C-alpha cells in the first residue's frame, strides 16, 4: 500500500534525523573541538576517528545512507509546504519555515563540506589534518560560508529535536512542548558555540 509507505517514510525521516544523524553531528562537533587544544590534539583525534575499525561500514550505515534518505525526502517535504507567515506570524510557524529553510541551507553546506573534505581525502587530493581546515577557513568567504552552514545545521538539529519529540508522542501537552522549546534553545546555543568556536580556532588560530 502506497499509504503505508508514506507513513513509514515520514517516521523514518524523523527517526534518522536524530538517530544516527543527530548523534553523528554531536560526535563530529566534539571531535573537531579538539582543534581548540591545538593542531596536535586535533590531528590525534582526527587520526583516531580515521583509523576506526571497519570504518567504511560505519560511514556508509551511520552517515551516508541515513543522510541521503533524510536529505532527499527532506527536500520533498520542504517544497510541499506553502509559507503563510505574512498572515500567521506565530512563533511555531516561524520555526516551521526556518526548519525548511535551514534544511535546504544545511544540505547545500553539507554537500560542499563532504566534497571538500571526505571526498577530496578519499581521492587523495587532500590529507586529513589541521592545515586542511585551516587552509579552507582562513579564506573570509569560506569562513562565513561555514559559519552560516554550521549555524543552520545546529538550528535544524535543535529544532528538529523539538518536532521529533512531538512526532513520536513524547511531548503531547502544550506545557511539555513549551518546556521542550526552551530545552531546544539551550541545545541550539550550546552546540552552536562548539561549532563556531572551532571555526574561529581554524580561521584565526585563537
Amino acid at each position, binding site marked *: *500500500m*502506497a*499509504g*503505508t509507505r*508514506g*507513513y513509514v*517514510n*515520514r*517516521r523514518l525521516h524523523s527517526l534518522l534525523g536524530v538517530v544516527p544523524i543527530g548523534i553523528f553531528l554531536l560526535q563530529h562537533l566534539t571531535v573537531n573541538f579538539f582543534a581548540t587544544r591545538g593542531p596536535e590534539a586535533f590531528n590525534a583525534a582526527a587520526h583516531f576517528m580515521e583509523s576506526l575499525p571497519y570504518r567504511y561500514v560505519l560511514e556508509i550505515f551511520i552517515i551516508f545512507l541515513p543522510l541521503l534518505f533524510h536529505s532527499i525526502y527532506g527536500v520533498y*517535504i520542504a*517544497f*510541499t*509546504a*506553502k*509559507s*503563510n507567515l*505574512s*498572515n*500567521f506570524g*506565530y512563533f*511555531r*510557524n516561524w*520555526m*516551521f*519555515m526556518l526548519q525548511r529553510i535551514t534544511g535546504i541551507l544545511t544540505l547545500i553546506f553539507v554537500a560542499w563540506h563532504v566534497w571538500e573534505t571526505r571526498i577530496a581525502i578519499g581521492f587523495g587530493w587532500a590529507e586529513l589534518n589541521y592545515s586542511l581546515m585551516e587552509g579552507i577557513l582562513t579564506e573570509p568567504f569560506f569562513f562565513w560560508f561555514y559559519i552560516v552552514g554550521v549555524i543552520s545545521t545546529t538550528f535544524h538539529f535543535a529544532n528538529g529535536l523539538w*518536532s521529533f519529540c*512531538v*512526532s*513520536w*508522542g*513524547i*511531548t*503531547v*501537552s*502544550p506545557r511539555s*512542548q513549551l518546556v521542550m522549546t526552551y530545552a531546544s534553545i539551550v541545545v541550539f546555543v550550546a552546540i552552536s558555540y562548539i561549532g563556531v568556536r572551532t571555526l574561529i580556532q581554524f580561521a584565526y588560530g585563537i
Partner: protein
Amino acid sequence: MSENKTITFIITRQDHPDESAYDEKFEIPYRENMNVISALMEIRRNPVNADGKTTTPVYWDMGCLEEVCGACSMVINGTPRQSCTALVDQLEQPIRLAPMTTFPVTRDLAVDRSRMFDSLKKVKAWVPIDGTHDLGPGPKMPESKRQWAYELSKCMTCGVCLEACPNVNSKTDFIGPAALSQVRLFNSHPTGAMNKSERLQTIMDAEGLMGCGNAQNCVQSCPKGIPLTTSIAALYRDTAIESFKSFFGSDSRV
C-alpha cells in the same frame, strides 16, 4: 452624525467557479454594532459599488449566525474566521473580504467544504451502534475524560484550521487538523474506542497524520479554541504504539 459615516469594503469576487477572481470596492452607510454579515446584507439590499455602478449582489454562505455552524467562514483582513462574529467596529478599514483559498470557490465568498466532510467519512468520525438488536446501555465515560472530549466535540468543520495550515495546499493531500482531532474524539469514546485501531490505520499515511508539519497555526486560529495540536500529538503517540504493535505482530489479531 453617524448617518454620514461609511464603511469601506474591498471584496474578492468570483462570478463562477471557472472564472477568475476580481476585487470590487463598496462604501456602505455605517450603523452601530454591525457585523460583516449585516454589512453584506446591506450590499445585497443595495448592490451599488464604490464607483456608483449597480452590480450583482455579493454572494456568501451563512447559517446559524452565532458561530456554531461554520458556514460563514471567510478571510477577513487576512485572517480566516466566521463573518457572523466579525464586528465591524473592531476591524481595520478598508475591510478586505476574500473566500478561503483552501477550498474551491462556488461564487464570491462561498466555498465548497466537501473535502472536510469526505475526510470525516474517511476516518469514520462516528460511533457505530446500528445493528439488528438492542445492545443495551454503553459503558460509562469518566467525567475527567468527558470534559476534554467535549472540547473536541465543539468542532464545526468550518475550515479555518485548514486555511491556516501551511501544509494544506495544492501540492499535498494532507487531511488537515479538523478530521485528525475527530479521530481522537471518537477514539476517546468508550464505544467508539472499539474502532480505535481502524481509525488510526486510516490516518497512518503521508496524507494523514504525517502530513502535519507542527507549524501549530491551527490551534492559534481555531475559533472554538479546540486543542488541535494536543490532539495531533496524542495521535502521534497512539500511532507510534499502533505501528510497533503491527510491526512486531499484535496479540490482539489472529
